[in-house]
């Protein structure tokens, strides 16, 4: 059972997409992605000059006729892509519940999983702090995955480094990793998390999910005692209009820093607010950053 946002039209649109990687990875079986293996796959890869011993069957005679030189065709072996979707399940993703931040992150994960399943890729999901799923593949796997994620009661706390390490330990075949989080944490922590993921030679993408409350916190309050949903730290605040402006600047600065970190690590990055349209984000924004094609 998929969430309500997964309308038939949306699913049809998703079926037209495929997850794109910048790298070529070795898969377990034949799939739709180019593998690092060269062999007898059906996909033409490139040309090289004829060398003694090459199979004359692969000589491109058309090219010989045009160039008067002998070239042989090279073919890549197409295999499935391992997609690892890492979901931030911390309390910040469910605060406030009404903003549906976790639900947006979940739906993005399911959208990407569906695309992967339709493209005969395998998907494993790491709900940090809760479970690291086995590899799923096949079109029907989406329902099973959806059921697991929809039944999940998130909002706890965990050791991020440890959970990322656990998630990475499950990766047998490096492939695509998509980290979905609000990234409202110190930049150092983000860097160290990315380093762990990059060490696994994963093609990383990051999707930041924010809620309206993250952009404009506590709009109805001027004087408030704010409590951190994860650390339970309390802090008295006064939020005048000027204070809110400064918060916006701080948020923008943080997001720019995030973009810089991701850019410097060649990690594609997209951002969504939980009250925006999932379909539009998936079909447009994710294709723009090159995560989907």
């Amino acid at each position, binding site marked *: 059972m998929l969430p309500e946002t997964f309308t038939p039209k949306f699913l049809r649109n998703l079926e037209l997409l495929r997850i794109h990687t910048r790298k070529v990875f070795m898969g377990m079986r034949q799939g739709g992605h180019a593998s690092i293996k060269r062999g007898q796959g059906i996909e033409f890869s490139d040309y090289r000059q004829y060398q003694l011993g090459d199979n004359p069957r692969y000589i491109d005679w058309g090219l010989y006729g045009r160039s008067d030189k002998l070239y042989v065709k090279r073919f890549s072996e197409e295999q499935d892509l391992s997609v690892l979707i890492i979901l931030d399940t911390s309390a910040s993703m469910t605060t406030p519940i009404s903003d549906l931040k976790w639900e947006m992150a979940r739906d993005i994960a399911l959208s990407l999983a569906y695309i992967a399943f339709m493209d005969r890729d395998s998907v494993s999901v790491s709900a940090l702090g809760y479970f690291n799923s086995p590899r799923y593949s096949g079109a029907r796997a989406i329902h099973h995955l959806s059921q697991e994620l929809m039944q999940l009661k998130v909002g706890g706390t965990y050791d991020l480094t440890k959970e990322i390490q656990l998630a990475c330990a499950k990766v047998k075949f490096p492939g695509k990793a998509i980290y979905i989080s609000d990234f*409202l*944490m110190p930049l150092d922590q983000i860097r160290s998390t990315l380093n762990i993921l990059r060490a696994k030679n994963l093609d990383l993408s990051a999707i930041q999910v924010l809620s309206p*409350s*993250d952009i404009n916190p*506590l709009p109805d309050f*001027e004087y408030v005692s704010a409590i951190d949903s994860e650390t339970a730290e309390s802090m008295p605040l006064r939020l005048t209009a000027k204070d809110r402006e400064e918060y916006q600047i*701080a948020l923008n600065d943080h997001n720019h820093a995030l973009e810089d970190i991701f850019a410097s690590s060649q990690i594609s990055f997209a951002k969504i607010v939980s009250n925006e349209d999932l379909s539009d984000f998936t079909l447009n924004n994710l294709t723009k950053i090159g995560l989907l094609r």
Partner: protein
Amino acid sequence: MNFFREQFSLGSPAFLLSLPCIIGFLIYVYLKKGQSAQKVVASLFLLKILKTKNPAKQKINLPRRFYFELFFFTLLVLALSGLYITRASEKIIFVIDNSLSMSTISNQVERLSLLQQAQTQASVAINSLPAQSQIEIYQTSPSLSSISQGFVSASNALDTLKEIKIAYAEDKLEAQINKLINSEFNQLYIYSDYQKEKESSENMHYVRLASDDLSQSNISISDIYFDNSSNQLQVTINNFSSNANQIQLSIEYLGTNQEKLSNPMPVSLEIAPQEQLKKNLLVDPRFQSLKASISSLSSNLLPLDDQAFLSKSAHSKKVFVITQNQISDLGLNRLPNFNFEQILASNYNDDYAKQIEQKHAIAIFDNLAPKTLPKFNALYINPPQQNPLFSTQAIVSAQVSGWQDAHPITSYLNLSSLNFNQLAPLKSEISWLSSIIETTKGVALIAGENAKLRVVVTGFDLLPYLGKESKTLSILTLNILKWLSSASLENAYISVYSSLDPSINKLVDSSAKEISFLKNGIALPGIYKAENQEIAVNFFSERESNLTKKKTLNLNQKSTISNISNKAKNNLQNMLLALVLLLICGDLLWSLWRTERRQG
């Protein structure tokens, strides 16, 4: 307090004490606001930056709403405190009827007199007036007088109110109020037991302090009289009631310069409804002064009129002799118990007449008669012919042919052998003069009494007084003088506030306390001792004693009043409450608009 040239006052200033508490509570609430409202946020990660960037935010800074709510509560407190404007202070007059009838004990629970009730109600009225009011207190008796001596503050007026005491006097309330109406005031309050004919007007308030209960019965002594010749005391008692009453009449001998006399036993009497009873009692002739009092088992709401005083002055009776002769020539100096003073006939005038009247003396007109009958008892000896009062006939010699032997003048006399060599028989145009001694040639002596005025006229020369040498005429002279002086009420008592003999410089009451302001007369009934005499003082008034006879008050309306209504007092209160209501509505609408804007 003055503000923008207006004078503001507070009706209930105690409410202002709540304002500092409200301000403190508001500040506390706003400081606590937010601290008590704890909200979970996704992350404090970015919010912490705010605190580190602006550490000065630790200071207390109250939001705009605080000042709005402070203004709101201030308006509410001012409205509850009864803020009002007083443009000018009102002048208010209180008239308290303190005549004798106001000493009536009320039929109500507290058993207060009507005057006490008037004082209580007037105090309540004064306390309810605006603080800036100027108040003048009048009492009606013995005459309308301002006891506050001008307009005073409420607190002074309340003190003055307590000083009003019952006066042994009647009130002339209607005339007094109608006179007072023309003076400057905004409001007039009258407290009396009159029945008012018209309803009170906007600025004249009449408060009636007597119930309509017709059983307001009262018994009073309305007169006291002592007949020297018969040693009989006559006490006149009135029963102003619709019921018969059993009363007891008691006599108490007073006086300091006499041997102790035994008081007679009280006499029980029954008096019919609305009856006036004249009771005669034999008293010890040696008494100097006495008090008669009545007591009743049944309702007697006005006790102050239940006693009467009487005194036979120890001082010898003053007799003015209007004559051209010397007192000694007339032999009058030989008469004991009389003090004769000559007034030359040629000097006698109205001033002398007034003097004689004031001194409560009697007079002997020796061979003359004034133009008009004086208001004092007098003996007219052989008035000349052609006098305006008594017509006389030609002088004849005559023999006594008859006399009224029951008359006090002829007491102890056998006049059958009396002959007159020169007699001018009398005739009088005055109807109440009757012949006492008649002769063969006409009336030799006439006498009579009208409204307690006694007159004796002789058609012959009664003087000179020869004593034993002319026993009959001497006794006759003594009888006449005795009759004239004993009948005079002025010898037995005087009324309250009546003028005293100017020769009296000092007077003490029964407790030896000296009485001041003698020129105003004596205010309280009783026996008073002067240098060489005792004076009895009484107050009798059917008008005050008859409680069943309702007095009606008919007042004129004040034509123009510079009236400051109490509306000015309330205006600010209503206006403030309306403003508070407006602020509440405005705040509600503002909140609604903000919510919709956020949702939009």
